[in-house]
């Protein structure tokens, strides 16, 4: 892919992908499935790395794929393509929303969307938590630690995640013995 093609590839995917996350990885996978210039293993290594670092998956996968094809310039073009559509759309909507957020129509719209969002998140959480807790009994420990520290004690999520991860590391060490 040329630099411009990289930009366009991610621009197109990003403009029609709602919610980000795993969905965007699936779209990228579909988009390069027919290409001969990248192998399955190379791409799955990228996916694996993208999912191992923090930050939006759209950013990490576009950076890695851009670098694979065209080095640093490719990375910048791909990330720009991935970030511009959501950025521009929110930039256009922000002043409108801020101006009309007091009207009952806009508030009603958001109330409705939020109710639906609650339904979607409930489904996602249910599936995710069930599979996470059922694959390994120990998982309940860091799970509860994170919820208790953030949800009950109101501690900074970054510190809470760090604490839970330390517990995971200690357990890992003990298990190796």
């Amino acid at each position, binding site marked *: 892919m040329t630099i411009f093609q990289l930009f366009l590839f991610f621009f197109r995917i990003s403009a029609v992908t*709602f*919610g*980000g*996350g795993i969905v965007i990885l699936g779209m990228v996978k579909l988009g390069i499935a027919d290409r001969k210039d990248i192998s399955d293993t190379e791409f799955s*290594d990228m996916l*694996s790395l*993208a*999912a191992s*670092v*923090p*930050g*939006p998956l*759209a*950013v*990490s996968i576009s950076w890695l794929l851009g670098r694979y094809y065209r080095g640093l310039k490719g990375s910048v073009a791909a*990330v720009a393509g991935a*970030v511009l*559509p*959501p*950025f521009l*759309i*929110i*930039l256009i*909507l*922000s002043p409108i*929303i*801020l101006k009309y957020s007091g*009207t009952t*129509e806009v508030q*009603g*719209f*958001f*109330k*409705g*969307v*939020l*109710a*639906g969002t*609650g*339904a*979607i*998140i*409930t*489904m*996602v959480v249910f599936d995710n*938590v069930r599979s*996470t*807790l059922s694959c*390994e009994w120990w*998982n309940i*420990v*860091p*799970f509860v630690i*994170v919820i208790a520290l953030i949800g009950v004690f109101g501690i*900074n*999520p*970054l510190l809470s995640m760090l604490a*839970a991860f330390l517990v*995971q590391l200690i357990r*890992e060490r003990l298990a190796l013995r």
Partner: protein
Amino acid sequence: MKVLLELAFSFAQIAVGAFGGGLSTLPLIEYQLVKATGWLTSSQFGQVLALSQVTPGPIAINAATFVGFQQAGIPGSIVSTLSIVIVPVLILCAVSCVLKKLEAEKSRKFKDMLRPIVAGLLTLSLVSPLTVTVKNGVMTMAMLVIGILLMRTCKFFKNYPPLLLVIYGIIGAVIFS
């Protein structure tokens, strides 16, 4: 200038902890934007969440662009969005620098250790939309329950959740005004 630095710092902190992508980032975003800085009220946070679900792109980028604009206009939205993009890119570069090749086994283990932590964050991401929806009244609570049933029974809505959200938004705008 001060507010731009604050925006950059807040979104950098969100980016650093944004493992798992998508909804599991919500507790970090809520902590930074509602609790630590007071830039959003709980109901405004609900609006930002709702907005991010009916627009393309990851919620972290949507929230950065919106709150950046709300706090400091176009420069604010640029700084915030760049912050949420550059921090993950730097981490990605650092990781690729240190590890010439990501060992599949180690990466898998790391993700396994993160998994229950991400599940905990996901569970916490439910708190805000559920409490705001309950506060919004019986109608929105009913919509939430119906939404779950719809997604469980109707393949169409399960595959295209944004469509459910737009319909819900229109219903909300009609019945609440």
